[in-house]
């Protein structure tokens, strides 16, 4: 009887290890019609707040919940010079992205619009430098970086020394670095 239990528990343990085989599905190629539709956000007339396109919900809101997209956003944040003004998120010449205060509201649609169209006071428009999907990836990363609640997914950690709390803890501003 004892042996049986041992065998059964070993089997169960081995089966539970199979859970580690689950990998995140990386969607590296977004169909062009979907990418085109992703641009149709409905923005409030004052440019603050709005609703994302329907297709974003149908796709399962991937830009906040997928580590792959968040990592792409993190790479774009470094590649497209965001650090020049926003630093690693603490701000500098431009507002901080992790202090919990959003000049144009905390929702993804506003952040998308800010990146795509720019904002008065120096934020340039990236409409002609990033594709629609890249803007969503970057917006998702920026939102997660300063989120009030811990996100379910996070980008990879930097190899460089950390200059601020990592992206996957929350709330952003109150978390001590050291």
């Amino acid at each position, binding site marked *: 009887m004892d042996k049986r239990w041992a065998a059964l528990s070993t089997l169960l343990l081995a089966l539970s290890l199979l859970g580690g085989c689950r990998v995140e599905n*990386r969607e*590296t*190629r977004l169909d062009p019609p979907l990418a*085109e539709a992703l641009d149709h956000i409905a923005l409030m007339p004052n440019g603050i707040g709005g609703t994302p396109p329907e297709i974003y919900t149908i796709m399962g809101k991937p830009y906040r919940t997928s580590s792959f997209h968040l990592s792409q956003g993190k790479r774009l944040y470094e590649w497209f010079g965001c650090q020049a003004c926003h630093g690693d998120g603490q701000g500098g010449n431009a507002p901080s992205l992790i202090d919990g205060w959003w000049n144009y509201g905390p929702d993804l649609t506003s952040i998308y619009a800010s990146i795509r169209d720019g904002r008065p006071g120096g934020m340039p428009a990236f409409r002609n430098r990033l594709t629609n999907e890249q803007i969503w990836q970057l917006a998702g990363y920026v939102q997660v970086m300063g989120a009030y609640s811990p996100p379910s997914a996070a980008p990879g950690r930097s*190899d460089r020394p950390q200059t601020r709390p990592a992206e996957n803890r929350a709330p952003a501003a109150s978390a001590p670095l050291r």
Partner: protein
Amino acid sequence: MRRRILLVSAALTACSGCSGWQSALDPQGPAAASLDRLLLGFVLVLGGIWLCVMLVLAAGLWRRAAATPGTARRRSAWAVGGACAATVLVVSGLTLASYLASRAAPLGQDEPLVIRVRGLQWWWEVVYPGADGQDLVTANEIHIPVGRPVRIELSAADVIHSFWVPNLAGKQDMIPGRDNVLTFTAWEAGTYRGQCAEFCGMQHARMAFLIVAESQESFDRWRAAQEAEAAAPAGEEEARGRQVFEQKPCGACHTIRGTEARGTTGPDLTHIASRQYLAAGVLPMTRGALAAWTADPQTIKPGNNMPLVPLTAAELQAVSAWLASLR
């Protein structure tokens, strides 16, 4: 019968590794030659040992056990002692041989040509430092003069890569934050294929490059041509292509010297059509391949960092004409 055919064809497939294209068994420079000698030495010594062990094993199975236990013990003590001594000798001898072979070969009189190569996911940035800070930046194709030592300074931008041109030298890792150096010489003019030799992500297998070894004169000609800015558009279509390239996101990542495109995160495309391959050894350089790659890079090399930029058919025609004219 069928099994024999399978065995023979497997052996023949293995033999194809001996041909010249990207093969360590066809050395074309002193560094690769010393590795080749080392490999031969290892094969001979270890093959000999294997043969001896098999002979002793066969003899042991064949013969009867010795009659008197005393002599048997003495004999087996000799055998074990001898085998241990031989193991120590062989291992230390081979270690010494491989140390001597992997030591940098003496450079000789010539001052080496310095080239900086940076590994990125999944392509190679190649920089020829200039005298007055005017570096020549290109990608995925490294031209070197024949007979002159080349000092490759290796670095990595994102993850660990490894620089390997089997015909010319051994592997050298490219590690973020730690610069390595590899020095080699090519004996003969030719085109040698290289490949990333450290798993670096989704498209590790499609991260190849070419070394083109040529005479000093043709190397100088090549370098002068590469240092020039991109040629002015030859026709109306090319001019339109250049305009599209500058206005669309292309220029945010790629540099084409002499135009508004000044991005540095993607490969320099100033003379892209002069290279033999596109996208780090994935496609042969033709206008069709350029168009296919521009239209849908994520199907050809999934996961690479070039996004699918939506272009109309006319824009795609124009851009591919412009890129194909950048010789």
